[in-house]
Structures are given as C-alpha cells and as structure tokens.
C-alpha cells in the first residue's frame, strides 16, 4: 500500500502541479511575445469565430489530401478517439476526475474499455513503427517524439495490465499506473504532447490570419 499511497498522493500531486505550472508557463511564454497588428483591410471577419472555425475544421483532413495521408490519419484518429474513450469513459477514471473537479458523467463497461485500450495500444505500436521506418518521420523525429511515445503508452499498458495482473498485486499495478500518469502529466506541457492545448492556439492563429483574408483555411 505504501507505493500506492505515494503514487496517489505526492507523485500525482507533483504531476498535477507540474502540468498546471508547465501549461501556464508555456502558453504565456508564447502568447506574451510581441504581437504585430495586422493593418490589412480584412476581406472577411477574423477574430475568435474564425479561430473556432479552423480549430474544428482542421480536425478533418481536406479531401484533396485524404488519400495521401489515409494510413496515418486513420491511425491518428483511432489513437486520439481511443485515448479519449479510455481516459474519460472508464468509470474509475471518471471518479478520479470527479474527485478533482466535482463533475461526473456516464462511463462505458470495463470490457469495452479494455477492448478500446488494446486497439489503442496496437495503434500506438503501429505509429511507432511508422515513425521508425518512414523516411520523412525518421528524418524529422527527435528525442521528444520517442520519449513522448513512451510516456503516452506507459499509462495505457500499465492500465491494461491491471485486470490481467500477471500475478502482481493489484495495488502495486495501480500504483505503477498512477505513477506513469504522474510522469505523463509532468512531461506533457514540456514536450510535444503539449499539442493537446497548443493545437487550439496554432489552429486558431491560422484561422484568424487566413480567414480574415478570405483565404483557404
């Protein structure tokens, strides 16, 4: 139980603090840099609505690019939807969030979650293989990409092992799972996983700049 106490207490607390501090740090470190006003006469309305438009529209690959990016897109969708399902629709996780923010929502049966978890882990492996073999990805990948992969996959794998157990005690596995989440939370704002929140800003910026021109977004 000691390890679980550590994981569920100080480790998780550290992770959450690092997550909050890192997120605010990174966002302000970017957004408080100099911003140049755009004096061009707008063709269309820019602003927050344009930002929201691209934030949502860029979730779908344009038809013109779909064929070329099909494999990676499908894997990407499955990974993200899978992550969403296992993170937010597994009842113990919902209870975790309820404990943090006081909100609760309905979950899915565990067996569904396990199934989705296995698929998600499989897709994760496929994405890693792609990264390690595709010439473009091989060239542009760095430590962040591989470390972020490990940090993302660790909670999925440790979470999937809990029901299987492999003769290891439940609370030990739970503790390892929570520790892996503490690591994930700690790393998230500092590496590329920060795209979880940066995506809104990069897409939003493009929305505001290009939509204002009436250009393709």
């Amino acid at each position, binding site marked *: 139980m000691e390890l679980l106490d550590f994981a569920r207490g100080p480790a998780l607390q550290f992770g959450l603090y690092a997550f909050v501090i890192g997120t605010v740090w990174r966002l302000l470190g*970017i957004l408080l840099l100099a911003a140049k006003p755009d004096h061009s006469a707008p063709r269309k309305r820019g602003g927050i609505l344009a930002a929201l438009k691209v934030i949502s529209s860029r979730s779908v690959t344009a038809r013109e690019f779909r064929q070329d990016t099909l494999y990676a897109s499908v894997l990407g969708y499955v990974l993200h939807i899978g992550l969403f399902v296992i993170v937010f629709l597994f009842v113990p996780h919902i209870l975790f969030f309820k404990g943090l923010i006081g909100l609760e929502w309905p979950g899915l049966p565990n067996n569904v979650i396990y199934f989705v978890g296995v698929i998600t882990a499989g897709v994760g492996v496929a994405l890693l293989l792609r990264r390690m073999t595709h010439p473009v990805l091989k*060239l542009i990948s760095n430590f962040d990409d591989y470390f972020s992969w490990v940090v993302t996959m660790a909670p999925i794998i440790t979470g999937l092992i809990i029901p299987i157990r492999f003769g290891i005690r439940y609370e030990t596995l739970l503790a390892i799972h929570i520790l892996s989440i503490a690591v994930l939370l700690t790393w998230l704002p500092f590496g*590329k996983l920060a795209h979880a929140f940066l995506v809104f800003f990069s897409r939003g910026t493009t929305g505001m700049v290009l939509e204002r021109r*009436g250009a393709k977004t």
Partner: protein
Amino acid sequence: MSTSKIGYDDAYDLQAKRLSVKKPEIRYDKQGDMTDDERVEKAMLHFVKDFGSTAATYLDACIHCGACAEACHYYKVSGDPKYTPIWKLEPFKQAYKREASPFALFYRALGLKKKVTVEQLEEWQHLLYDSCTVCGRCSLICPMGIDIAAMISLARHGMFKAGLVPHELHAVAERAEVDGSPLGVTPTVFEDRLEWMEDEHEVDINIDQEQADVLVVMSSIEIQKYPQSMAATAKILNAAGASWTFRTDGFEATNFGMLSGNAEWQRDMSMRVIDAAIKVGAKKLVLPECGHAYMALRWMGGNMYGKPLPFEVQHISEYMAELLNSGKINVNKVKQSVTYHDPCQVSRRGGATQASRDVLKHLGVELREMKPGGDYNWCCGGGGGVVTIHRADELRYKVFKLKMEQIEETGAEELLTSCANCRQTFDDGQNHFQWKYSMESLLEVVADNLVEDEQ
C-alpha cells in the same frame, strides 16, 4: 554583397542563357565578406527578431507528424524527406527553441538545443530558397494548423542578413532595390514601352496623371515580356470609364525584397507604390497579374505602411470580376474549354479564388478544374523567387511535370492563369518539354473579348 553584382543582371529573364549546374545540392551561395561566426550571429539576430507570438505559436506546435511532406510538390516528385516542409524550417525552429521559446533558458543552459551552425544554414539555403515556392499547400494539410509557408518567409530574413541567399535571387532583389525593377525597367523604359503599346494596340494609356481614382501598377515581367498586358489593362480600364493612371514613380508591383528575405527592401518596394497611390489620391490600387504582389501589397502593404492603407487594393482579376459583375464592362462569350491555374498567392494564400471564377463565368467558357484544383492547386514551381535560381532548374522541371500531368488530365483546350510569374514559368516549362499547352493570360482574354460598342 559585392559578389552579387557579377553577371546576374539577367537572372529573372528566362530567355537569357542560364547558368548550368550539374549537382545543385552541393552548391550554396554567399554574399559579403562576413566570417562564418558573423553569418551565424546575423542569422540568429534576425531569426530572433521574427519570433513574435504568432511564429512562436507555430514553431512550438509541431508534432512531427510529417503530413506536410505529402502536400509539397518537391517531396512528391523526389521522395526525398529533406523536402518535408517543416524540415525546411529546422534551423529556424532550432533557433526559436534556443533563443525565444518558453524554455529557452533551459535549452541554452543545459545545451539541449545546439546553436545553429553556418554549415546548417548553408545546407538549408537549398531548402529555404531553391525548393520552396511559398505556395502554402503544406499550411493547409498541417493538422496543427501551422502556417509553414509564412514561417519560410520569416526564416529567409535571417538568411538574407547572413548573406546566404542564392546569388541570382539576391542579384534580382538588389537590382529591384537599386533600379526600381528586377528586370531593369527604369521610368524611361516603362514610359517608352507604354507608348509603344499605345501605338501598337491603339489604346489610350494614362501616364503620370496628377489625380486618379485608380492607380494601376505592373510587374516587370509584363512590361518586358508580356507588354500586351499593359494595353489589355488600359483597354479594360478605359472601357469601364475609370479615372486611372500609371505612374512612372511607382509602377513596379513585384517585390523581390519580400521573396529574397530583405525586410527593409520589401518595405522600400512596397512604399514606392503606396506613396504613388497616395500622391494621386487613388481610391483603389489595382495590382497586375502577379501573385506575390498581391501578398506584398494586398495583405502586407498596410503593415509596411504602419497603418491601414487609405485605398483599396485589388488584384486585376478581382477588379475585372467587379466590373463584370456590376455590368460596367461586358465580354463576348468564348466557346472553349479552359482550365485555370490559380496563382498560389492570389487564390490559396490571398483569398481571391472566386474572382477569376466569376470572370471565367462571364466569358462563358467551359471551366475544367484541375484535380486538385482551386485552393489546393499544385504550384507552377516558379513562385517564391525560385524561378530566378538557375541551379534549381532541374528540380523545378520535375515539379512542373506534376503540373503538366494535372493539366493534361483536364483535357481542356486552353490554359489560363492570372499571374505573369506563373506564365513565364509555364513558358519556360513548355519550351523545356516541348509541351503542347501555352499559358494565356486571363486579363488578355478579357481584353480581347471586350464588348466595345457600348461606349
């Protein structure tokens, strides 16, 4: 910058003899007598200058998914991963992380991001200039919404200050800054050629009027190679009954300051036109068939001026669409099938895609769109200053083949565009491949089919 003067005067003239370069990937050009360290320092200083919140948002957001490669014609035709658009920004990104990112202090203190080296910058000259037309397809595929093309333009600023620009592009830009035109069009030359066109086409051309509602500018390519464009423009403006003029003190629409990465020259070149427009009290500035001029003046002009421009800026296709839609001019129907090549900076990047479609509708042609077309159109391969770079020819022809294929697939009879730079790239490609298609100008087609008896 002394070396750039030697023998590159004709760099922008595709009919002149081209420097033949067998192994383009190992060649890079240097201007000035700076030491390597000075070059790096200059590049860094000017990279850092551009790291505002917008650039930071973009440079921090990349997830290394590699999707942008699929949008880039250079990657498509070569399969070489170095042409992945975001990779072209690697030194710029590296500099950002080290110099201005939220964790810059740690990157520097712990040595996590190394200093950009002169070798890197030299190597990237090929990637930032020879193999990027700033066409912006990658900006549309990026799932993070990163405007990669805009970042390429920023990265060129540092490259220019470090004296690491392809010689020909540098020479063209310098010539444009000094002479007022990348092709040596002085005010006298401009006036001469206008007068020649006036005679040749029997059209009244307004030159240096004191006051006018519309200031019209031209690109040197048109003035020197497609002078009939000037006559066509005049014809249309006359037909519309507009109060308009050309000005010899502000006629050059192209902006090689922008393309080469010299921000000061970019401002100088834009300000010549802006000042001229203000001087004549123009309500409207009509830009010629030139893609990057639209970006430079329509979308960046106000920023050069420092406040909103006191006049409207339109591409000639927008102006024609406006005149046609409002019935101020009329055209005869053209019974032909055409395909239209969208200039990247006007359509995809500039947002004026619909204007040319409106014009084509009035012309009554059967428009056969390319696939992908419109905003997703493949670039001709000559934009962003690439067409000036001789050593990039081999690669440029490769990407042009992609363009040829998609045009042939449409089976259209005629090929139209509204950008003189695209047009000369097509002409060069046509010549190189002995291709059946000739690129025609939308402006000229409209002028040729004007219904004139209304006046």
